[in-house]
């Protein structure tokens, strides 16, 4: 990450977070209020990604994981969910000084998006895994009853 981009993210953190958060809430129906736990969890996760934007560290990854965990539960198509991460690039571009190379920033956002996709899929799978575990347990009970 270049020093310029680090500075841009640092200096405009609140505005970037506010705009990105708003776009995140736009995914939901119009009644999702900014003060709800879901919205706050979204804001926290986005804040973690922005704060860890300059490095590929655990903090950023945790933020991505938390967002993916929420998105995986909602009936958005995967592309729609992932578009939220690409929105970050659109927002950051608005702060870029003229002539600043956007390539390095794009590369970072794309890496975050790919990681988010993996995490999103893992969480969708996890929902099925939980269903299977419950079905297995129910079947176990049926067999036990049958045996008796």
């Amino acid at each position, binding site marked *: 990450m270049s020093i310029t981009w680090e500075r841009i993210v640092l200096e405009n953190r609140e505005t970037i977070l506010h705009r990105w958060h708003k776009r995140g809430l*736009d*995914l*939901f*129906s*119009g*009644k*999702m*209020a900014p*003060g*709800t*736990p*879901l919205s706050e*969890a979204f804001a926290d996760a986005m804040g973690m990604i922005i704060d860890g934007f300059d490095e590929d560290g655990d903090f950023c990854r945790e933020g991505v994981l938390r967002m993916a*965990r*929420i998105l995986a*539960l*909602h*009936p*958005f*198509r995967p592309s729609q969910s992932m578009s939220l991460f690409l929105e970050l690039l659109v927002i950051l571009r608005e702060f870029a000084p003229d002539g600043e190379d956007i390539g390095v920033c794009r590369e970072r956002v794309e890496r975050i998006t790919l990681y988010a996709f993996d995490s999103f899929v893992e*969480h969708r799978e*996890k*929902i099925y895994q*939980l*269903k299977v*575990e*419950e*079905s297995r*347990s*129910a079947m176990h*009970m049926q067999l*036990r*009853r049958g045996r*008796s």
Partner: protein
Amino acid sequence: MSKYLQKQADLQKEFDEKPSSLKGDYAQKEWWEMPVEFREGNFCFPAKPEVIEELGFPNPRKWSVTEEDWQLPEGWQKTLMEGMRERIKKYRSLKLYLDSCVRCGACADKCHFFLGTGDPKNMPVLRAELVRSVYRGDFPVVEKILKGFAGSRRLTKEVLREWYMYFYQCTECRRCSVFCPMGIDTAEITIMVREILQLVGLNNNWILAPVANCNRTGNHLGIEPHTFVQNIESLVDDIEELTGVTVNPTFNRKGAEILFITPSGDVFGDPGVYTMMGYMLLFEHIGLDYTISTYASEGGNFGFFTSNDMMRKLNAKMYHEAERLGVKWILGGECGHMWRVVHQYMSTMNGPANFLEEPVSPITGTKFSNAKATKMVHIAEFTADLIHNNKLKLDPKRNDHLRTTFHDSCNVARGMGMFEEPRYVLRKVCNSFHEMPENTIREQTFCCGSGSGINAEENMTMRMKGGFPRANAVRHVREKHQVDSLVTICAIDRASLPPLMRYWNPGVSVYGLHELVGNALVMDGEKKRTEDLREDPMTGFDDKGDDVD
């Protein structure tokens, strides 16, 4: 590419044509114009025809929620409207709740399903409005004059789909009622609408199958008496192996002082079985004269989610059994809705149980005057009283491998106002206990998201959404205090919170309160304890060294 894979163009067409509140097409529309879409993960399967037949309920048939034709009986609108009128006349509370809402919106953001889904129809005010709008339309003149202004509407198939979806997305937790300035209990509306929906055969298999089982065998799982005994005996063996102590439960013993009834999940389900082991260790520790019934072998009451009559019938079996066995009073285990039924409805529905005695602890002599009418004492109160009177030998260090928080079960907290007793017990049996944020505990507790019979695996996505506010509060104490154990006193919680934690907070395990009591009890004649009831190693109690005293 697989020949079964849907073409991208088809997917796009489906997305364009299928109504969805997520596409933003409904921003300017009224709430009743929002589409109802049943999709995988947001509904429970309907009851099987054989289950409905067994119970003698109307319209048994095989049908699917996602199909257009729900195979409703002839004249279904008339049946439902008459059912609604009859209940409004019979239950004054329902009429009051339908009439008195002023749409202030205080309840709007209090529902865990609204907070987890963002779906406006999950605001309690709007959920109730789904039925209120039809109730209002039942006055033809008013409707004619005020149509549009009054928000009245006719009972159509679309409205019925809304009722089915949203009244099975309410867990009857009553958090909204805590904040309602008019005292409206939206859960009571849900209870009534579900009862009305039964009239045309709209129901849920995860509720009705346990009801049928309980009706037939005495417990939700349909376990026959001999299997019930076998299972408890296998837990007795486990206890002996772990602690070296032999506990001696008795079954159907006439003349015992106390009848102990707990949810059958404690006898058969993981992690409920460890709670059952805890109960038995406790009773052995104090030498309690108790018996367990293999006929009234269920504390839970899924009749409560079905109809008032069924609730009354399933509740009555506990009292009939207590009378048959000639016990003095009933001790109830860790359960949620069992206690709401007992505490709020039993005394006028089936009681007063004058053939039993006002409960007095045989160990401490404490009179439980709060249970004067129901003759049934909550195990957390009973144990708190034992601890308060120094009747238990406890070593809380035996739970030092756990960092705990406590989840107030909705029915016990809001339904009977029990907040402090379980916390008192928990503080005495373990050294690490941290509260979740104040607005998520006690009377403001958040539901597990799976109560009131919607804990079906096919409803998993909705359960994870509905449980999000609770999980979020657990995350808070996990991050702040490294909490890894969520303690609760409800069998449905013990079934539903483990998957919720696995999804939102991996690494957090779920425990029953009396499991931790069982860990901490120092029993006479016990062998050296190194493992808890789950056979997990206790900290500082390894085989090599002595206990850290």
